[in-house]
């Protein structure tokens, strides 16, 4: 991801998006011209419940400054019934653990975004990029 000086640093965000909702929402944002920042690298997954927190670790390790997880709304939108509940419990616990390890928990974010919420996706994305920008690059000490 290149060498950068403090001025040229841009937040890098990986987004794991459920194919049935958030990912479709992101596509919709694209076709409806709701602009969202290029800092976000979207990865489509079958369900938010299939996101192992080890993926999040890998993302941070590869240089991501923030990780966004997008799933279908609770309680009943998930195609695999309870996948989103799994994601919810995982993220809650993972944030707690990140904080203890010295990583600001705001760097991991969970959002429910349906296939029709293109606008919401664009807004979340923009907001998250700004939040991470304020936090600065990851690494270099306990946060």
């Amino acid at each position: 991801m290149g060498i950068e000086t403090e001025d040229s640093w841009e937040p890098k965000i990986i987004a794991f998006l459920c194919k049935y909702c958030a990912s479709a929402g992101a596509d919709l944002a694209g076709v409806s011209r709701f602009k969202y920042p290029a800092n976000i690298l979207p990865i489509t997954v079958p369900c938010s419940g299939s996101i192992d927190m080890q993926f999040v670790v890998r993302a941070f390790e590869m240089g991501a400054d923030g990780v966004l997880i997008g799933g279908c709304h609770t309680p009943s939108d998930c195609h695999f019934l309870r996948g989103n509940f799994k994601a919810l419990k995982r993220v809650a616990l993972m944030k707690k653990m990140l904080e203890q390890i010295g990583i600001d928990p705001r760097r991991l974010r969970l959002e429910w975004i349906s296939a029709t919420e293109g606008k919401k996706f664009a807004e979340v994305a923009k907001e998250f990029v700004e939040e991470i920008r304020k936090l600065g690059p990851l690494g270099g000490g306990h946060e």
Partner: protein
Amino acid sequence: MNKKLRIAIVPGEVCGGCDMAFVDLHRNLIDLLGAVDIVFWPIATDFKEEDVEALDSIDIVFFQGSIRTEKHREIIEKVAEKAKIKVAFGACACFGGVPSLADLYALGEVIEEVYLKSPSTENEGGIIPGETVDNPYGILAPKLVDMNYKVDDFVDIDIYIPGCPPPKERILEAVDILVRYFEGRADVEKGTVIAGSRTLCDECPREKPEKIVIDKFKRIHEVKIDPNKCFLAQGIVCLGIVTRNGCGLPCIKANMPCRGCMGPAPNVYDVGAKLVSAIASLVEIENEPKLSDEEIATKARTIVDPAGLFYRFTLGLSRLIRVVKKK
């Protein structure tokens, strides 16, 4: 065998438990002493470093403990060069062990706590060992390194023997493999772990319900622990689900949950993150669909100390710690 095997046992930052595990081999130790030459072992012998320096080769070295000072690193690197087979012995050498928990804090904070803030300490001068000279001879304690490292951060390891300390049966198994290797009767694949290849849960005799449903996670002092039922099913976190089997389950049998000293089971990328995922998928919170998102999150967070619990013995392996510490 025409020649006795030359063995060195080299400590880094240790508690002494790994040494004791060797001593406790007892009769087997005596047999072993008949078959090998111990060329370096500080707890039981008066050998000094220069004896190691004088040796031209060592067949097997057992590294114990983690690496906390430059001195530890120097010695293990020196010995590693001379050794044919390098073994990481014990959780500290393999994964950083309990002392790695110190890396949840910055080093300066740790020092401050011990020498300035402890309630029985009187330190008007603000003396910090290793920094403040307070005698006419300029004598000072040496400085520490930035992090608690596992051994393979510095040298290549052929065999890992996990456990805190490693169980007797596994030590003997390792010795057996090594003896056969040097007799040309067995191969040693680099990175071999002397333990099982499954998880503790796979051999745990406790009753497990088909589906685990709990109200919230509990701490060990909050309940009377049922000696026959799976800990997780009682809401108590047990690390058996991601921990490598092979210890013989002494804790589980003593009615205490596993804390993971045998290290991660095969195919675990990051122990803490894996546990977060595994626990959330195994354990369902009662009435989940009827609760609000915040209520569910709160119940998941009833695991009070995920970092200290999940990485109890393996923080030195944590990839996240390395992300935090990278410059």
